[in-house]
């Protein structure tokens, strides 16, 4: 049985309401950026101490999630798990949308966004930032081709090759994003090669969580059915990714704790650092790690597709919330901890040396940060109306007939379907 894809009608009041709200928030982001450009960044909470703020937290979150959102497509076309094949188009679309949303934040926050062309005309290849510009644009092009190959029947046989390229590219891309921080020897919280692989596993979790949320919300709004088999798979997969993130976070902190020179920043992040320890333990670890694991590893009642969907949705929400806390702790916490110019000595100056820096986001950068998310939603809303990204059904018999390695009559296999 072939999977049938169909554009959404997009005539409902709810659809237009969502489009208009997202459009307005995106426009507000542009307004914010223009205001920041006209007045200077002093109207934001960012300064010479907290150099990167909320727009960067959201940008890094979205960019990391972008490469992770592509995983569902990769699992289908690179690793041959055709259960995920009906989801591959949405996976590619989300990857593109999330990346554009992240770049939107980064570019509009620049001191001189109009000079961006300089980065293309005069690239400095010793800079990981310069490499990232190519990695990001390359990703958009490759995933664009990937989507085309998936949607154009005559090109379908080549989907595997493009899928492999996209998968390898996304690994390099996330390595590049992690290295923006990993290469910074000056700051105690960064300066670690483990940040690159940490970012990769983090992208798996963020991307899948956002993918699951969009899938569940979209199919619920459209009244299209999702079967238990697929939900159970996504649930298990998300649990594996969340556990992997916790492992890498543990390795990162244990390494720092073991090195005497890094204990200062560790004690800051984990115990003494004001808002950051609660955000780390409560947000990143408990909400983003423990709660999703407890939810995802709990056995769902057999046949209750609704319960399965709710569990997945709650867990995915927790992963997203914990993920934002994780990036906030890394980016803002990492800058809040003073630069160690004279390790072991008390340092004072008129330039806030030796001082823990506070950051309170002001409205211009908060609006800009949220506008990146609105852009993601706007792209997805428009794209699913224009092109057939979403399958008409993800019922068990559709996904299993599509060639999944099925358990013939597994726990969820032949259960009655519930419209989620």
């Amino acid at each position: 049985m072939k999977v049938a894809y169909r554009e959404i009608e997009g005539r409902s009041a709810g659809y237009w309401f969502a489009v208009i709200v997202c459009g307005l928030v995106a426009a507000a982001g542009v307004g914010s950026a223009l205001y920041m450009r006209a007045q200077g960044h002093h109207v934001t909470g960012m300064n010479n101490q907290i150099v990167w703020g909320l727009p960067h937290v959201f940008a890094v979150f979205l960019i990391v999630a972008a490469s992770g959102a592509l995983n569902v497509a990769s699992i289908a076309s690179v690793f041959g798990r055709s259960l995920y094949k009906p989801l591959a188009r949405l996976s590619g679309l989300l990857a593109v949308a999330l990346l554009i949303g992240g770049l939107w934040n980064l570019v509009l926050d620049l001191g001189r966004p109009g000079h961006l062309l300089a980065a293309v005309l005069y690239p400095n290849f010793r800079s990981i930032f310069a490499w990232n510009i190519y990695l990001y644009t390359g990703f958009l092009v490759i995933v664009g081709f990937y989507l085309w190959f998936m949607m154009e029947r005559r090109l379908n046989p080549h989907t595997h090759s493009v899928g492999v390229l996209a998968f390898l590219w996304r690994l390099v891309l996330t390595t590049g994003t992690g290295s923006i921080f990993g290469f910074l020897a000056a700051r105690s919280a960064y300066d670690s090669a483990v940040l690159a692989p940490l970012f990769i596993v983090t992208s798996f979790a963020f991307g899948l969580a956002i993918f699951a949320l969009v899938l569940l919300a979209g199919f619920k709004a459209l009244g299209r059915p999702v079967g238990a088999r697929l939900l159970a798979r996504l649930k298990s997969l998300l649990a594996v990714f969340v556990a992997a993130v916790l492992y890498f976070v543990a390795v990162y902190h244990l390494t720092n704790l073991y090195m005497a020179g890094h204990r200062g920043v560790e004690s800051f992040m984990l115990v003494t650092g004001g808002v950051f320890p609660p955000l780390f333990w409560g947000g990143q670890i408990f909400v983003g790690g423990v709660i999703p694991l407890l939810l995802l590893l709990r056995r769902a009642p057999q046949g209750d597709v609704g319960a399965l969907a709710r569990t997945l949705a709650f867990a995915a929400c927790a992963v997203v919330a914990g993920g934002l806390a994780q990036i906030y702790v890394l980016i803002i916490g990492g800058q809040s901890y003073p630069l160690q110019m004279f390790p072991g000595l008390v340092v004072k100056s008129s330039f806030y040396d030796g001082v823990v820096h506070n950051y309170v986001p002001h409205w211009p950068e908060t609006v800009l940060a949220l506008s990146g998310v609105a852009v993601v939603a706007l792209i997805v809303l428009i794209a699913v109306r224009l092109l057939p990204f979403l399958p008409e059904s993800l019922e068990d018999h559709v996904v299993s007939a599509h060639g999944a390695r099925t358990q013939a009559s597994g726990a969820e296999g032949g259960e009655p379907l519930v419209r989620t």
Partner: protein
Amino acid sequence: MSDGSQTMEPRDEEGGGHEPDALRRKLLKLAGAAVALTLAPGVTVLARDLVVKGSGGRKAPVRYGLLIDANACKTGCDACVRACQDYNGLSHDPGPDNAQWIRKVTITNPKTGFSRSFPVMCQHCENAACVDVCPTGASFRRPDGIVLVDKHRCIGCRYCLMACPYKARSFVARNVSDQKPWAPRGKGTAEGCTMCVERVEAGKLPACVAACERAGHKGMVFGNLHDPKSAIAKRLSEVATTTIRADLGLGPSVHYRGI
């Protein structure tokens, strides 16, 4: 969808005629050239770096540097800071988003009570982190070792502020007025100590060094580190000095005594 090969083939009238192989070869050549063109600048930069920094590289005839004697620097004196602000048109207000190209730093050893106060500015590193991370090459190092920002190329990403271990870079977060012709500033760009490059080129001392001399402290020596006859090179060969965060291997041009 239209079939690309059908529309392209009849137009291929050069060299290879109508053979699809010729077209394919041509496309491959073009793609190869595009890849080479993209990678060439990076490879060139890396290769040049290897030559300059490797054992076979020649030492530049001039490398400007500073020696700051923390033993001579007086606690409470900020003549160098004031001179820099006045000369370069910077604000005297040390607000969190105001630029500070040079500041007086006081360090105290909590175990012994030993304390020193001395100025810290851009250290004009040999392997400057700001130059490495700058995506556009706006942060650059002159052949004489002075590290500057090209305001026309700076996109305001602030990666240099993140990367500098000396907190020597500032971001211009406000409209600037009363700019000095020799120290152009730009809202939305990064900036830092220029070692008063135009004064140096005119054979004068940087403003901070001149101010320290005027104040009679003689806590700063400026000169060519690569000239063995220069005052700074002689002094460096006589007294024990260090650089800040020498462990990072950045090779600062600013040396300190007494810290």
